[in-house]
């Protein structure tokens, strides 16, 4: 059986074969992580909290862009993926399930992302995302702990 390091980088590339900087952290659940999940469930009672244990194996960007395999935390890498994989920004009126929502902070940090799973009857996107090392949540695009001042939507071209 292969022995894996506690932390390592996966060979993960864009379509243009550029390496995407990432880190999978295989360490056990930390003190307090489970309590934090319980706290978030109380704080956001209207959202669907998926019963997935907290971990540092992947984050929101790992869910959106790397099939839940690893943690990506640099905005430069997100920009690289958008450019190399030919994502196109789409207008709010055209959002469809399957599109990617990226939450940009005022400083330009891609501090959160998720996959649109539904556009409700009020034309509000419902997003599946992972909240840092905590669990996965299906949430109203504006109901989450991240900066919602600028959420952009992207669709892969081909």
């Amino acid at each position, binding site marked *: 059986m292969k022995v894996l390091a506690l932390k390592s980088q996966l060979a993960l590339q864009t379509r243009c074969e550029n390496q995407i900087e990432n880190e999978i952290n295989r360490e056990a659940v*930390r003190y307090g992580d489970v309590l934090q999940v319980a706290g978030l469930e109380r704080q956001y009672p209207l959202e669907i909290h998926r019963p997935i244990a907290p971990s540092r194996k992947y984050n929101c960007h790992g869910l959106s862009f790397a099939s839940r395999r690893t943690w990506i935390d640099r905005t430069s890498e997100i920009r690289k993926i958008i450019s190399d994989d030919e994502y196109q920004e789409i207008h709010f009126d055209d959002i469809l399930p399957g599109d990617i929502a990226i939450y940009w902070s005022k400083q330009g940090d891609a501090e959160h992302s998720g996959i649109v799973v539904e556009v409700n009857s009020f034309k509000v996107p419902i997003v599946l995302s992972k909240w840092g090392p905590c669990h996965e949540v299906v949430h109203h695009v504006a109901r989450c702990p991240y900066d919602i001042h600028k959420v952009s939507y992207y669709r892969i071209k081909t």
Partner: protein
Amino acid sequence: MMPIKDADLTQAAQAYAVANTPLFLIRKLNEDASVNQMSSLPGNELFHALELAIGQRPESLIDYVRPYAYLVALSKQPQVSYLRDVTKISKINDWDWLSYIAEVLLQTYAPTTFIKTQPMVKPSLPANRSNAAVDRQKITLDNS
């Protein structure tokens, strides 16, 4: 001033628990009232607390966020020397993002100065008071 270890880092720990990126953590800690309060403590005291926190095994989520909170508090000090020294702490790389955050804070460092101000003292009322008008101005209304 309360001891550093008694600072309320509940909000900071909540931010740490949902942080996807180091810049998100910096932003939330910069906005945190307890971190801002800590930043008025002497730099050597903060630096010592940071060294201790880095060397200790965390036993709670608060312990996990402690080094990050102290680091951001150090970045608000009037002198940059302590922040520069953080990168030399041997165990800094044992903590996710800590060395990267220190670098970002160094690059974006803007010195903060704390000024102690005295509360404004109201002039005492004159002993003899009257209702006499003392300072009248003629006001002309413009009808044009």
